[in-house]
């Protein structure tokens, strides 16, 4: 999420968090995103960030999102969103190729 504009409506993706984030982490992520997208300079992104925070800070709303937000009719391609299909694998597999003559 480094340097990325908030994408999608998933509040966790917008704030760059995992679903396991606690209240403190949510607030910290929100404040960090506010610095990145201040309302006067990036109003659209700010609104996304704010809506995401409002949803996640309320524990009941957060729970409802966790339980009921999944959309069974969502386009299958949307499952690739947020998942980097180009995986970082470390230097090992690359060096294995470079060692071959």
């Amino acid at each position, binding site marked *: 999420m480094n340097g990325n504009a908030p994408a999608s409506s998933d509040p966790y993706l917008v704030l760059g968090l995992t679903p396991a984030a606690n209240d403190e982490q949510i607030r910290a992520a929100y404040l960090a995103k506010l610095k990145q997208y201040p309302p006067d300079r990036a109003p659209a992104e700010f609104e996304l960030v704010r809506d995401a925070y409002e949803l996640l800070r309320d524990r009941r709303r957060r*729970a409802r999102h966790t*339980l009921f937000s999944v959309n069974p*009719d969502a386009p299958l391609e949307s499952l*690739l969103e947020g998942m980097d*299909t*180009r995986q970082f694998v470390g230097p090992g597999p*690359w060096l294995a190729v470079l060692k*071959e003559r």
Partner: protein
Amino acid sequence: MSQKQNKKNTSASKTAPSQGDTLSFSEAAARVREQIAGQHSQAALQMAKDVHKRCGTAESESLLVEAYQARIDGLLKLGMMVEAKALMGIVNERFPAAAQRLASQRREIHALEGNLDAAVGPLGDPNLPAEDRERIESFIRRRIHDLPALAAVSSLPPEHSLRVAAAALATAFKAVTEGRVEDGSLALPEVSRRSPLGPWKALARAIASYYRREDEECRKWLRAIADDSVPARSIPAMTAMCGGKAKPKLSAAEEKLVTFAGDHGAVMRPALAALERAFATKKQRPILEAARAAITAADRCDAKLRERLRQHILVRGGMLRVPLPSMQTALGGRVLEDAYYLRLLARALEEKRTAEADAEAAMVWEKFRAEAIKENWFAAGGLEDGVLALHVARMVERLPEELVEEMRDRELSFGKQGKGAQAQGLPSAGMLYERAAASDPHPEAFQMWLNWARKRKPYQIADHVAERWRLLRPTDVQPLLYLMESAEKRSAFKKSLGYLEAAEKLDRLNPEVRRAKLRLLLSTVIRHLRQRKTHLALGGIEQIEGVPEVRPGEIAALAAALRWCMAEADGDKAAQKRLEAELTESMGSVSAHLLIAATVNAAEMKYTAKAPPLKASKIPAAELLAGAVKACMLGEWAGLAIALPQGWNKPLIAALHLPTCPLDAAQMLTLGEAALRSLAPELAYNVSSVGLGKGQANAGFLFLRARSLPRWAFARRSGCFTASLELARRERNTELAGRILDALNPPQPDQDKRLSLSYFDDAKIASRAVSQELLDLILEEEKQFEQFPIVEGYRKPKYAEELNPKLCDCPKCRAKRGEGVDAGTFLDDDDDDWEDDEDFDDDEFDGPIPALSMKLTEMLVNFLGKLPPEVATKVKAALAAGEDPITAIERIMKQELPKGNSSASSNFEKKGRAAKIPPPPEQGSLF
């Protein structure tokens, strides 16, 4: 080498001297070099040995060394390092002058042994000839792949440019393969363009570009890598990963790199798009083929992603009724039935919006819960557990009773199957509400639980819920108010007062508490008045007078009306006149009349007492309306049912439509409820028209309209109920939503059976999902229906089609329309699809009054038979004209009831009792 080959070589070598004897040195040298070029280093070496043996010149020695070099290179290529090193030792020994010529082979052996110090050490000599430097650097470019080792060689000083460059590159390489790195971080000034490690810089940038999805940039950097360098070995794999054409066969290491680091999305996206198109066709064969292709394309991607895809595809296919075994085969086996999958399945079932699917969804949610707790999604008894339980409880509560019974039977038969088979049937709403309240004890959850429990018998069920609420949230007044009400209904007045006192202790100023106190006191006074115990009633009235006012003068007015009844019971006409005058002065003649009439009715004095007469025709319509509303507001607040005289309907309706009508939404709704109670549906309808026109409290006005519409206007009733419930839910108005659901719920088996005249399944309304478009359509159209509907000229609303969509484009519906269905199309063989059930086609009913159900007909016939013939004739005429049966009976009975205490009236009453006239329906059960 085999003995035969040895013999061959020996014979060849034996031949060579003989040939060499004839061949000149130059020809023999050419032959040796041919062998070297043809990669036959052993034969070349043998020939060179023979030539040197024959000639013994410096040239032949040089040729021999050349052959030795080739042989050592050959051994190194075969990985025979020990043999190559031994051979090098022999050459160094025999031909010390040739040591320099074997430098590159020596470096190669050093490198293979990991001895980079020896391989690159000479670079530390500033006097190293340029040619040697170039050879070493070329060696580094072509052979060195261990950058950290190169950065750590001790034969070069730490500040040597090679070591510095190697260290910087090692760090950069690790960074770009482990995470996203921007170009700015890869400037690497330590690595010059001419450095033998230059190609590594290009490789690092290529990898960074790849992960940033800048494929064009990546390809540019790959082109900049020298062909003979170590980094060039990664080009085929990276070309394949960027979607280009790679060499036909990748090595095992290259395959592995592509598998793990490759862009699976680029391969999967087209396959997923094809699968979406197949789903849109709703045909089994294309779906299965496309599913198979999609999973194959996902072969190399992350295992977790692949499993998610399988789960989603299975659920999508299942919702389209593709047989489960076929889907599983296409997906390569069963999917993982973890919490994620079960949640997905439950949501998919909910989207079907049928009662059976909701029931299945409830069961799946229970399975999800068990799995989610196991997988640590949340803790049992935690907030999420509570939220989930509440959600499922509301779903289960809306299910029709017969379906719940059927699912329960299914559960029992399931439970009988062998050991270990766990009955995971439909959970009960009560159990779910209890779990919700225990896990997340907040007022909304308790209120919903209580609303559910109130519909159950015995009363202890609801009382238990209220007690639990009280226990878990001791500062909430709502459970106390409920318990107070419940005790009062059972005539346990002492207990009721006890609860009221407890509520007052918590929050005396709470408007709900004050209202409840007033209602309890009023109820007590009414009871005393019915029993004609005026001395006890007086005490209650004095307590009422002590209750703080909400609107000025109202408490005093209520007390005055009650005193009027007391005076009636005591036969004190003078007191009655005085109180009438007081009331008229404080509330106006209209409100005074209605209040007194209401208290007379409540105290069961209507056959003996008469409210002060009022000629409505002589009162301006606006004043009549204001007075009626005032009385209704007070009655609603105090819990006193205000009845509006039938003769007031027209003037009240006229007053409502005046441009100067000052009523707000709350006042209009109160008036509307009073109209319904007074069996004046046309007045209630007009209230809803004015209210909807003002655009406020649409949910409340639509609910009012739904109950005021004639029974035969099914589509409109359905639409209004649907829209009002949806709006109430969206506004989180649980009180209103509860009232609407109460109005929709069919009577429970153990409840009093009223005249239940629902011609359609109200449970469908309760569970129907409503889109914003449909909501807007209903609201818009209902606003246009300003006039109370009558049979002539009635038109069905346009939104009726949206509420009950006709045949769609699916294969089953196309078949029904007689259209061709393609081969391979699967058909839905589940005949229990509620949505396709056209048993209750609105067209059949939404027109002239339909024939009453057999049961109702029988009851009516019996009833009419016991009435005086002229009265029965009038009732029949009213029914034939389209009037509501209950309304007609009530109206005609009132008209025909003889005035005064006459024998005729007592005879009539006896006949009426014999006819078992049904009691007037209460609000909410009119229809």
